[in-house]
């Protein structure tokens, strides 16, 4: 199906209504499976049970970057192709991405306390992730202050493109700088260095988080379209009342 066919909000809503229950069910199922596997996964020989924080922390970190990537693509959709739903997609992704970023920061800091002995260090990976969170807040602030939704959307699109600079910095911060945060251990040349007994639950949890993102994103997009319709209807009503 071409992207252009999704440009019609009514058609998009129909497709979302059909897909959403399936995505929600798949999310619940895989999340449950992932949680069971995560609980059953063996403890780390050094870290003990605290290693299980990883099953929340790592997927949340990935999704925090996916969220901004979605906003960047949507920003191109808004500015270049003028796709009517692109700004809806960007606006819906911003709070979700910010939420995942916050989960990543909080779980990371709770994990840091027992393993590093501190909740927070001003380290490249942590700082760049915090900057990502601040950028999310900046985009949200733009949406909050814009009186005209279209204008706010274009402003947020420009900021999304500029802020995308932070994504490679987050990703490669552990390779570029000496970091207390451990280096890349999954997507690396020579294969992952995590034991399969922990890698598998992690993969299932990542899948679950990704599906959760898709579900929340589709639902948020639907809500945004409906919210805009309500707004238009209210304005029409106000105009009629005045006439």
């Amino acid at each position, binding site marked *: 199906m071409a992207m252009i066919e999704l440009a019609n909000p009514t058609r998009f809503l129909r497709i979302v209504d059909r897909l959403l229950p399936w995505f929600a069910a798949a999310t619940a199922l895989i999340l449950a499976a992932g949680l069971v596997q995560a609980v059953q996964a063996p403890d780390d020989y050094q870290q003990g049970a605290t290693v299980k924080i990883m099953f929340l922390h790592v997927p949340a970190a990935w999704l925090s970057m996916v969220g901004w990537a979605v906003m960047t693509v949507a920003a191109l959709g808004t500015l270049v192709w003028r796709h009517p739903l692109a700004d809806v997609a960007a606006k819906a992704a911003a709070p979700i991405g910010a939420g995942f970023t916050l989960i990543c920061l909080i779980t990371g800091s709770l994990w840091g306390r027992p393993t590093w002995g501190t909740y927070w260090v001003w380290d490249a990976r942590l700082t760049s992730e915090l*900057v990502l969170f601040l950028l999310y807040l900046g985009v949200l602030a*733009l949406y909050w202050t814009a009186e005209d939704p279209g*204008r706010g959307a*274009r402003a947020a699109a420009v900021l999304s493109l500029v802020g995308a600079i932070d994504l490679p910095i987050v990703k490669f911060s552990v390779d570029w700088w000496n970091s207390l945060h451990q280096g890349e251990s999954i997507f690396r040349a020579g294969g992952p260095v995590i034991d399969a007994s922990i890698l598998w639950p992690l993969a299932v949890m990542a899948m679950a988080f990704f599906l959760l993102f898709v579900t929340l994103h589709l639902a948020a997009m639907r809500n945004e379209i409906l919210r805009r319709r309500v707004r238009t209807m209210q304005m029409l009503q106000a105009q009629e009342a005045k006439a």
Partner: protein
Amino acid sequence: MNAFWALLIRDMRIALRAGGGALIGAVFFLIVVVTVPFAVGPDLKLLGRIGPAVLWLGALLASLLALDRLFAADHEDGSLDILMTGELPLELTILAKAVAHWLTTGVPLLFVAPLLGLMLDIDPAAMGPLLAALSVGTPALTFIGLVGAALSVSLRRGGLLLAVIVLPLTIPILVFGVSASDLASAARAGFGPAFTILCALSLASLVLGPFAAAAALRHGLD
């Protein structure tokens, strides 16, 4: 190119003459830096150590302060519309305004900085690298701030929104600026690497900033 210079000179005249308030930025810089010893105590040893960082923070906040009016003033009296429909490409128009902004708010800071360095007891040997880093880094603050200024003018909201948008983007400048001007870290890694990265950031923002700001203005003001 005549239009470019004309615009640059016009913006500098507006900033320097009555009602412009270019020097308010330098005074603000002075006041921000002077409040620090009251907050952390008059311990000269401590002040000397954090001095470069304090000067950088002051420069960041001072350049942010003046950005608010960069496009807003022209937007209010309608001259921004004329500039946008003129023959000069919007990117160059913005570049001219940015250069004028830096000359009137960034350069005065460089003249005030040695005096403040003296008051904060910064090691005289560190003042050279600090000034070099500030003179290379403050243009980047202006060029990055352009994006925020353009975004906030199209939304008719300045002030806090501008700070929220721009400050996260300026963190790399702050990181490399301070590490280039700090003697302790310069002794560890050398002045060169941080300074060259700072130059690179400045040049990159010189190229990218006007384009992003032009996009924001074009899409924001229809």
